């Protein structure tokens, strides 16, 4: 059924129009607020919030329409045409897109609302809102893009906004360095992505970049290429979704304002990588051997456990959340690696994660705003002072920990089921360990932040409704949104988003109880250490010192980067320096030393024996050389000087050619042309 609107031509359906409107509102906001700059300080934030609210409404309508009518037909117009190169600019609104539209606009709206207070009084508030709006536009553009190049364009725009927002306080050295780092590191991935896109375009038959047509256009390629192309595309996803080893930018990105962290580094931008892989899933499954997907799984599962271990020892509340984000993204990527078994689960986890991670970041923002510190050891005892923040934060933590029946439980369970279904033993084990670590570090984080005695003087108190309302909304969603995908409630989400065909999942009681047990164990461990003090923290650190240091130093990844990329250059130059100093200089010095000794020997030989002979010879030579001198002075010098003088003479005449006077040059040019023409006329035409 199509809702064709009479006044617009072509295959535009109401769904597509609303999707475009969803993008248009924040774009409009960006243009207005961005252009008005400083004069928009007062009304700019409000305007931006209103536009994003409109966008939220349209996106919800889009979701409703897609649920009711299925995906809208892709609408496109010719974007660029030259020769046989044709690129379309289109909007593809299907279930995945509709879901992402809702998630992005919802989190973005709440962040806009939250920032009203958080950023209040900042001199760059209008710029902040303009950038948020541009970011939202770009993210919506990524989501609605119908071909890879269009997606890439918005993808880069997202990267740019991330750069701008991380470096929002650019007068802080750490902030702009973090921004640069994020930009460069993601660019490493983007290079791969772009190479992949170019390869797709060149190798596809017929040439296309359309996401719908690509899998069939690439199907007949050589198997090796079918592994390489998805992996190149996955590189882009690794950069944006912060997968090991390109995750290094995300913890540093916490230098940006906290609402930005909530929007970009928890809910939306990092999800772009997941979205990209999900969108290109058709390409990943082309490879018959499944190698590409295996790589994806292993990268994801390793990232998940890797980041979780680091999160257990962080002191900065935002860093804990950052590493937890990387870990959860690893979860999603791992699930994507299961192909059609994990596709739905990954996107389900993406949605639930957006809710509770957005909540946690906003909650931490509220705490940071109140206490003016980010170090958890300087907080504590905030539960009484900030009850709403504390309660919502705890709910979010439980959702992240994956405790039944919160949202995280259902999506995590779906991923574990996928792992089990594909018999991926190692990823399953890693995922289960992560499932144990997650509740542990979240318990630690919550306890240190909200309970115990205040460890530092502060006057924390709850902020206005603009701060708490987003928290409450997200907390409610974190609790209930999992039910849309719960196997006991009809698997609505699974029926809505799936790859190829919908398959109902069998309820795996072992996994459900097992993971719940692990979560409870993790919470218990956290409480045992931090709340009840059963184990002394210092004792534990002493016992597990190597492991602690290993985690504390983030598995030495930054150092590894330094070691792989920076140090070798440094060492190479060091080595060259040493080689120069030792070997070459040594050789030279040695030669000199030898020469001195030899010289001494030779001197004795020379002074004693040779001189006698020489003196004799010298007498003869003097006589001969007198003759030669005459010859030299008169004949040879004469010749040499004569040549030099001749050259100088010719040069002094010839250099006049170089007059530097343009008409001279032009004359020679035209005279030559005329000459050539005359010669051609003479030889070719007349004869």
């Amino acid at each position, binding site marked *: 059924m199509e809702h064709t609107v009479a*006044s*617009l*031509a072509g295959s535009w359906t109401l769904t597509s129009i609303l999707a475009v409107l969803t993008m248009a509102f924040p774009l409009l906001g960006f243009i207005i607020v961005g252009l008005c700059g400083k004069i928009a300080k007062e009304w700019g934030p409000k305007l931006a919030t209103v536009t994003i609210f409109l966008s939220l409404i349209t996106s919800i309508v889009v979701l409703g329409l897609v649920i009711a009518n299925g995906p809208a037909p892709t609408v496109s*117009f010719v974007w660029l045409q030259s020769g046989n190169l044709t690129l379309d600019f289109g909007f593809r609104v299907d279930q995945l897109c509709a879901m992402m539209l809702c998630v992005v606009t919802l989190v973005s709206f709440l962040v806009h609302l939250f920032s009203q207070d958080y950023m209040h009084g900042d001199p760059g508030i209008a710029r902040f809102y303009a950038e948020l709006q541009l970011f939202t536009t770009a993210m919506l553009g990524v989501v609605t893009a119908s071909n890879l190049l269009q997606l890439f364009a918005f993808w880069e725009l997202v990267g740019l906004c991330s750069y701008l927002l991380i470096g929002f306080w650019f007068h802080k050295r750490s902030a702009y360095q973090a921004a640069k780092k994020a930009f460069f590191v993601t660019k490493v991935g983007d290079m791969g992505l772009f190479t992949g896109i170019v390869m797709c375009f060149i190798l596809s038959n017929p040439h296309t970049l359309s996401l719908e047509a690509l899998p069939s256009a690439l199907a007949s390629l050589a198997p090796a290429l079918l592994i390489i192309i998805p992996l190149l595309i996955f590189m882009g996803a690794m950069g944006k979704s912060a997968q090991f080893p390109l995750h290094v930018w995300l913890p540093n990105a916490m230098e940006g304002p906290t609402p930005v962290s909530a929007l970009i580094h928890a809910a939306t931008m990092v999800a772009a990588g997941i979205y990209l892989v999900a969108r290109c899933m058709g390409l990943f499954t082309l490879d018959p051997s499944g190698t590409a997907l295996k790589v994806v799984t292993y990268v994801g599962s390793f990232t998940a456990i890797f980041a979780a271990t680091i999160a257990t020892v962080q002191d900065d509340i935002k860093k804990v959340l950052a590493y937890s984000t990387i870990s959860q993204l690893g979860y999603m990527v791992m699930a994507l690696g299961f192909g059609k078994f994990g596709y739905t689960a990954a996107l389900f986890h993406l949605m639930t994660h957006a809710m509770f991670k957005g909540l946690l970041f906003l909650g931490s923002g509220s705490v940071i705003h109140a206490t003016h510190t980010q170090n958890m050891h300087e907080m504590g005892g905030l539960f009484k002072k900030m009850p709403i923040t504390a309660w919502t934060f705890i709910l979010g933590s439980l959702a992240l920990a994956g405790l039944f029946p919160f949202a995280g439980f259902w999506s995590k369970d779906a991923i574990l089921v996928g792992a089990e279904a594909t018999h991926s033993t190692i990823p399953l084990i890693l995922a289960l360990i992560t499932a144990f670590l997650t509740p542990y570090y979240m318990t630690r984080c919550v306890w240190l932040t909200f309970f115990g005695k205040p460890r530092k003087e502060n006057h924390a108190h709850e902020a206005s409704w603009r701060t708490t309302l987003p928290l409450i909304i997200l907390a409610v969603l974190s609790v209930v949104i999992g039910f849309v995908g719960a196997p006991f409630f009809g698997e609505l989400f699974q029926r809505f988003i799936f790859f190829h065909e919908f398959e109902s999942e069998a309820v795996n009681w072992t996994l459900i109880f097992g993971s719940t047990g692990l979560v409870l164990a993790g919470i218990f461990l956290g409480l045992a250490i931090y709340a009840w003090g059963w184990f002394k923290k210092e004792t534990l650190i002493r016992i597990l010192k190597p492991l602690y240091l290993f985690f504390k130093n983030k598995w030495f990844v930054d150092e590894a980067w330094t070691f792989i990329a920076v140090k070798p250059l440094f060492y190479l130059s060091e080595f060259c320096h040493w080689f120069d100093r030792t070997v070459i200089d040594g050789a030279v010095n040695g030669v000199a030393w030898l020469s001195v000794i030899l010289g001494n020997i030779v001197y004795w030989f020379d002074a004693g024996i040779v001189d006698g002979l020489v003196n004799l010879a010298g007498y003869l030579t003097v006589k001969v050389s007198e003759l030669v001198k005459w010859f030299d002075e008169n004949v040879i010098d004469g010749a040499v000087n004569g040549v030099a003088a001749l050259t100088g003479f010719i040069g002094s005449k010839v250099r006049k050619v170089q007059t530097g006077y343009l008409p001279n040059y032009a004359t020679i040019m035209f005279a030559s042309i005329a000459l050539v023409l005359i010669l051609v006329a003479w030889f070719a035409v007349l004869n």
Partner: protein
Amino acid sequence: MENFVPYLIVALIQVAISLGIFGFVMVNALLLTLAERKLLGWMHQRLGPMEVGPWGLFQPFADMIKLLTKGDVIPKAADKFFYSYSALIAFTPSFITFAFIPFGLVGGIKLVAADTEIGVLMISAVMALSVIGIILGGWSSGNKFSLLGAVRTAAQEISYEIPKTLAIIAVVMLAGSMNVYHISSIQRVWFIAPQFIGFLVFFVSSLAEIFRIPFDLAEGESELVAGYNVEFSGIRFAFFFFAEYTYLFVTSAVITALYLGGGSGPEFLPWGLSSLFWFLLKSFAMVGFILWFSRSLPRVRADQLMNMAWKIMLPLSLVNIIWTAFIVLNENLLKIVVK
């Protein structure tokens, strides 16, 4: 000679029409001077010229006689040849532009002297020629103030040519043709509505190109005495004057054709004479509007003039082109705007 007689007849008819238009131009320019002075008078709560003829109606003819009978002075430092003919060079293009103006459709005959495919382009090209006469006039007078006026003129003309042409391009995009008659007759909705930004740009740029008051820097009395025509008197001055007032009408007519639907309006006269009527009515209304508009504003400074051209008019016209592209690409919207 092949088919000589028909050529001759056509040529004679063309000469006759040309002479008719010439007469129209002259009388029109004369009447416009009177109209301007009267209008200005009313705006100042004065009566305007009242002495010559009933209600001052013959004032312009008296002025003309005065100008024609004045002594013909050629300054000593002047370049004689160009001093003599610069006024004509300035005036001739204004007269040529009449060839491209679609006065209407009377008895099935298009009242366009040169009904060419590129009429709009030709109008703007020919109008640009006038400035050569003005520059020459300024230069050949051998007077510093004249030269300064001429240089200012050149800068102004080149600068405002660009936004004006871009505004015209938007109209051409919408109409799908450069034929002026086609453009004026294709408008279902007067283009002033879908092209409002373009109209503003065109209007302001045209005012600048014909040196109406907010932009009459070329003859800024306060700083340049009287600009490029300070040394001119008698009939030469009259021709510069004529050129200026003819352009006033030409600009109004072009605006009418491009933006105000040309001769469209209720039919109430036989043989389609009403289209001529409406065209002239709209044009003179536009003339009145320009006089009113320009007489209400003070003169801008030279730097303001340039800033306006490059920083306001040019971006605006580009925005207008984007907006027009949006209309043109959307068939249903396009159907609302054009027939």
